[in-house]
């Protein structure tokens, strides 16, 4: 589906997705949909902006996603709301699926999710009976150890109600960072070449070997979230990671359990960092390579709905800088594998000729149409791309049939306990992006929100602990702690806390748990156990935060200015 189609859905199931903070311009489509009469079911442990305008808000307990999804499937089947014709004609695996969801009665799911059984029934009915129905999901689904299972669970709902293959239906992951889709499309993945072509398929490998003129490895590579383990715990020297070339990322800020990440970077023999700004990873890097930034180079991004769009050089970079692709090709050439590209279009043309689903998406077409959604297989100007997938209920499987997969719910890996009685989930700050090296250096965005950030807590919890808005608090997990400001709000439930991961002082990833989903290898950012402590001496705390900020700025090479804190 495409982003513009959202507002024309009859029903939107918005699951673990907070568009207002992560993608305001997608949230705009949800607001417009509501104005046009779209029914909204919002599933989120917080009262998000979407929850506020929704027809039904299922304020589930964090970590109970799959129980709720399976219960919705259970209701749809038991109340005769499934699209049997679609199931028979276009899918496989339905009977096995039924066996799993059988036990997920709304009453059983209520005990796990704390959502009343009757509400689950109503939501399932609303979703199944309003056409077309669309599902959007975000990090509130993906950042759990049980993530892929929930994505499949949501796909089950769309399959069993026939909500695939037309406009304003289906299931849409709204990707977080601007070019996550693009990095995946380009094969920055351990198991795929560009265009989602498997590294273990001999025919495909042969194609790339021929194009690139060298033999290629048939072994799936290491996932980024396995790097700490492969550096710190791997005993076999040939399997240990000895060199880490980090390009446009800051794992020492963005990854879970930062203490472990710092140890990893220090114990890895050789760390190269290629970036635009000094960052926390740079403190541990052996080599730093400065590159051009967004606004200083050409290229293509892929947006969340598979749209290829051009980025253009807006201003001339400092003459001492090179673009990322220039740096990579120079290193490659120096290592004995020569690369000689003159511009990004040359690289792009090599890439599309190797990827059937991207083959037709030329620069010329992007210039002319602005945006080209893949698959776009033909270079003729008539092939303008594909707004939605699975047209006519045809899926990208061998027999063109969609497959039901069901699994049982399991709780998050680290639950509240006596020592750490509350839960912590990471969320987004609307005015800041990712690790904040860009927006943290934008004047007005910094004015709006700055260090050390906030921890959102229920007002009852705050009253009990004697905390007021803006007060500095210490928040701890068994892995680490940080200092941040208290934000009492009735938008979150008692016992739960939420922190945005953009802050360097209020760095919630000091606390988060590095346990991974077994398939996607995504960490469980959305759930770990924590404790909030009141700081008696607020004057000391305010000074301490100021000192920490000064220390960071000094480490990052800033000598001028007083900052604003």
């Amino acid at each position: 589906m495409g982003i513009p189609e959202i507002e024309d859905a009859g029903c939107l199931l918005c699951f673990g997705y907070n568009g207002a903070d992560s993608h305001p311009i997608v949230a705009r489509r949800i607001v417009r949909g509501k104005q046009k009469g779209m029914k909204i079911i919002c599933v989120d442990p917080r009262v998000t902006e979407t929850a506020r305008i929704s027809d039904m808000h299922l304020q589930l307990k964090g970590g109970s996603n799959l129980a709720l999804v399976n219960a919705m499937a259970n209701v749809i089947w038991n109340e005769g709301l499934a699209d049997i014709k679609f199931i028979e004609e276009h899918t496989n695996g339905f009977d096995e699926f039924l066996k799993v969801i059988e036990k997920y009665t709304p009453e059983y799911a209520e005990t796990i999710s704390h959502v009343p059984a009757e509400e689950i029934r109503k939501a399932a009915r609303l979703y199944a009976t309003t056409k077309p129905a669309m599902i959007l999901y975000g990090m509130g689904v993906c950042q759990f150890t049980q993530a892929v299972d929930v994505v499949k669970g949501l796909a089950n709902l769309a399959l069993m109600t026939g909500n695939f293959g037309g406009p304003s239906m289906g299931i849409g992951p709204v990707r977080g960072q601007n070019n996550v889709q693009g990095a995946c499309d380009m094969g920055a993945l351990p198991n795929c070449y560009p265009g989602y072509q498997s590294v273990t398929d001999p025919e495909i490998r042969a194609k790339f070997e021929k194009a690139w003129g060298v033999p290629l490895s048939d072994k799936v590579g290491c996932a980024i979230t396995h790097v700490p383990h492969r550096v710190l715990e791997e005993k076999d020297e040939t399997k240990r990671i000895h060199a880490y070339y980090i390009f446009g990322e800051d794992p020492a800020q963005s990854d879970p359990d930062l203490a472990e990440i710092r140890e990893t970077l220090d114990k890895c023999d050789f760390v190269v960092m290629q970036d635009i700004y000094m960052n926390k990873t740079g403190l541990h890097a052996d080599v730093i390579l400065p590159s051009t930034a967004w606004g200083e180079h050409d290229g293509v991004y892929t947006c969340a709905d598979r749209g290829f769009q051009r980025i253009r050089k807006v201003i001339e970079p400092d003459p001492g800088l090179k673009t990322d692709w220039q740096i990579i090709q120079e290193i490659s050439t120096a290592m004995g594998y020569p690369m000689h590209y003159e511009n990004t279009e040359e690289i792009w043309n090599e890439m599309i000729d190797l990827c059937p689903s991207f083959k037709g998406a030329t620069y010329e077409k992007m210039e002319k149409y602005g945006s080209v959604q893949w698959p776009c297989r033909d270079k003729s100007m008539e092939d303008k791309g594909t707004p939605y997938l699975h047209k006519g209920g045809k899926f990208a499987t061998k027999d063109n049939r969609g497959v039901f997969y069901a699994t049982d719910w399991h709780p998050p890996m680290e639950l509240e306990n006596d020592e750490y009685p509350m839960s912590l989930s990471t969320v987004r700050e609307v005015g800041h992006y990712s690790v904040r090296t860009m927006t943290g250096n934008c004047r007005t965005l910094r004015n709006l929100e700055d260090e050390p950030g906030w921890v959102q807590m229920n007002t009852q919890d705050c009253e009990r602990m004697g905390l007021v808005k803006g007060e500095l608090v210490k928040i701890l997990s068994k892995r680490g702690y940080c200092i941040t400001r208290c934000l009492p709000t009735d938008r979150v439930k008692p016992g739960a806390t939420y922190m945005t991961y953009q802050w360097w002082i209020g760095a919630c990833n000091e606390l988060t748990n590095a346990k991974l989903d077994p398939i996607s290898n995504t960490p469980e950012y959305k759930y770990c156990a924590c404790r909030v402590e009141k700081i008696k001496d607020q004057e000391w705390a305010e000074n301490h935060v100021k000192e920490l900020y000064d220390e960071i700025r000094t480490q990052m090479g800033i000598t001028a200015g007083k900052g604003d804190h």
Partner: protein
Amino acid sequence: MALKEIQSTCAYCGAGCQILFRVDEAANKIVEAVPANGRTNAGTLCLKGHYGWDYLNDPQILTKRLRKPMIRKGGKKSPLVEVSWEEAIQYVADRLNEIKAKYGPDAIMGTGSARGPGNEANYLMQKFMRACIGTNNVDHCARI
């Protein structure tokens, strides 16, 4: 003063909004960013799209812009020393070749970037890891 108008895609989320930058070419600076009529944004922008570009003039608020390649010549924990591009590129190439010779290609890990660099740089990075280094050890922060 005639301003040049250049359209680009916003770098701050997956919505893919189109922004029109008005640029003073002589001074090599952006004067303002206004919403363009893109497929997904239809003439609207959020606060990051409107006001998220002045990091380019290096205001030194949180961190400092990197301008020269640097190497820790005295090993881990030693200070970073500015070097020429030639030296930096050769140093990285030599160290990676050395590690590859000693432990094999799977001892080297590389990342793509889901942020500013763009698709072509990601394509080249994975090609570099696969064809030059000889490993599929390449991944990016999609999971983060």
